[in-house]
């Protein structure tokens, strides 16, 4: 089933970490397997925030060898960053397998990202000036607590509660997905994509990488491909309705935008609240009410509807 949520504050920052946690916790019943956030802090020009995992949560039960392996992987990643000319300004080991780096880098971050992911077991969850992508097993309060999200200030964010259906319960199959290697772009999705393999092979032929067998990853790769070819977010969303088969509602966030698209059958829900300073959306109204308890007007976007909002 899965639950998705997103919000964007217009022209101001707010505590999007705790807001997204409240929304996603209200959607826990739609998917208790994993929870993920893509939250956007104040952009730091010239600096990049990179979130990556060096193992799966389940790997940690595999004995002492995994700890040594993780040390080796981290050393390899840092060597690659140094070789690429990146300067590590800070490093936080949020969990034993998830790290957060702040880097300054003048070169091509895409090339560096590809090299980093050549290290076995390493996946970059996100890279960008504003984006921080966090996902792990458990509900929103568990993940928020684990990653210290309650004080995260930013302009917008999207999130996901996952009920695993077509792929495993692990971090690599959890949402959101970063639109690798396109900085600051993330995707969450509720639905099933029925031409996944056709589209995946088409994207792979064009040189894109997939880290999981989760159909939602396709939307991130597809969006990255379109954006890197100069297509606007709105046009990419609109084009996806014709090119992606299945039932889906998905959200895409960039450094300063939040967009949504709903397939031609409108079979996956989304409730939308719009005001002059805040736009909030979720699979169910109860998630919006978690941050806006007062009486508000909400609507359901229709089939083939595409919307984009600016921060």
């Amino acid at each position: 089933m899965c639950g998705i949520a997103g919000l964007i504050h217009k022209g101001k920052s707010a505590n999007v970490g705790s807001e997204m946690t409240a929304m996603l916790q209200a959607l826990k019943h739609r998917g208790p397997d994993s929870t993920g956030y893509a939250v956007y802090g104040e952009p730091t020009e010239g600096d990049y925030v990179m979130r990556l995992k060096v193992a799966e949560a389940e790997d940690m039960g595999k004995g002492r060898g995994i700890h040594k392996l993780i040390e080796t992987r981290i050393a390899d990643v840092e060597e690659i960053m140094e070789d690429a000319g990146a300067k590590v300004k800070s490093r936080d080991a949020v969990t034993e397998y998830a790290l957060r780096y702040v880097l300054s880098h003048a070169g091509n971050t895409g090339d560096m990202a590809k090299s980093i992911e050549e290290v076995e077991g390493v996946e970059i969850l996100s890279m960008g000036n504003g984006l921080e992508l966090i996902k792990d097993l458990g509900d929103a309060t568990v993940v928020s607590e684990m990653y210290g999200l309650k004080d995260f200030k930013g302009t917008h964010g999207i999130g996901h509660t996952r009920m695993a259906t077509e792929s495993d319960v692990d971090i690599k199959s959890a949402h959101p997905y970063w639109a690798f290697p396109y900085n600051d772009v993330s995707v969450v999705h509720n639905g099933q994509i029925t031409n996944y393999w056709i589209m995946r092979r088409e994207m792979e032929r064009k040189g894109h990488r997939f880290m999981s067998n989760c159909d939602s990853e396709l939307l991130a790769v597809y969006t990255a491909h379109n954006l890197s070819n100069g297509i606007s977010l709105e046009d990419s969303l609109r084009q996806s309705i014709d090119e992606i088969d299945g039932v889906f509602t998905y959200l895409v966030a960039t450094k300063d935008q939040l967009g949504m698209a709903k397939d031609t059958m409108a079979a996956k829900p989304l409730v939308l609240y719009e005001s002059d300073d805040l736009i909030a959306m979720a699979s169910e109204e109860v998630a919006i009410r978690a941050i806006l308890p007062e009486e508000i007007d909400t609507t359901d976007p229709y089939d083939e509807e595409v919307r984009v909002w600016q921060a």
Partner: protein
Amino acid sequence: MASMTDEDLKQMSQDERAKALGMTTEQLTGKSLYIEFDPEASERYTYPWSHDVDFNKRTEIDTDALSTTEVNNAIRERMKEGYGTIVLKNPRGKHSLGVGILNKLNLIVDGSCGYFAIGLIDGPNVRITGRVGWSCGENMMAGTVVIEKNAGSTFGAAMRGGDLVCRGSVGSRTGIDQKGGTIIVGGDTGALSGFMMQRGRMVVCGNAGKNLGDSMYDGTIFVGGEIRSLGVDAIEAELTDLDRQWLTRKLTQYGLMPDKGVDHFTKVVAGKQLWNYDNLEPSEKKLIL
């Protein structure tokens, strides 16, 4: 039938009750029991086990700290105490509120509901001051439900009787599998509204999305605005004087009568080229046979 009292019915088992009411040919198991009523009884269309409530006796339930089950149980407890008007405060999008009320009752929801609000009801009059999520009024049998704001998709799915009214706009697949009753939408409706509709009427004062009335067996859809496209086997039909009178009465009743009247409404019915669903409802059989 006329000599059978509610008290007699209460004493019977489910199977005995069904047979006593003339439903002897149907294999009744689980929840398939169909209940007929004594036409001479003073309280028609009430269940033998329903509570005798007083509409002038009013109470409020603050739902904020309650689960859905606790709210719905509290409604039943208040009805048992004779309260005929119940106000639910602070619903905040909770799912499945007011489901399965088989009693006369005035229920006011002061706020918005989530999924499956007021489903499976038979009798109450409900007013929701906010909006509702997906599947509001699903399988409702009788009563009136008025939503002041918008509603989500599958509004009135499989409903069989009563009036289900949304003053705002509704999502997709409105009245999917509708088997009776009336759905009225003050604004627009989304794609595939009236999909596999079998009976009843649907009125949309605004626009309708694509594939309206797709694969409908029977029933009638009236649309005041634009229809993006008709579905398979849905065709336009002539608006009759009887239709105009009915539309005028219904829309006036709910304060949704357009300034320009009802002449502009488009009537959509089944072409009946795919399949003709002509089984009568048990209550209709009783009238005809």
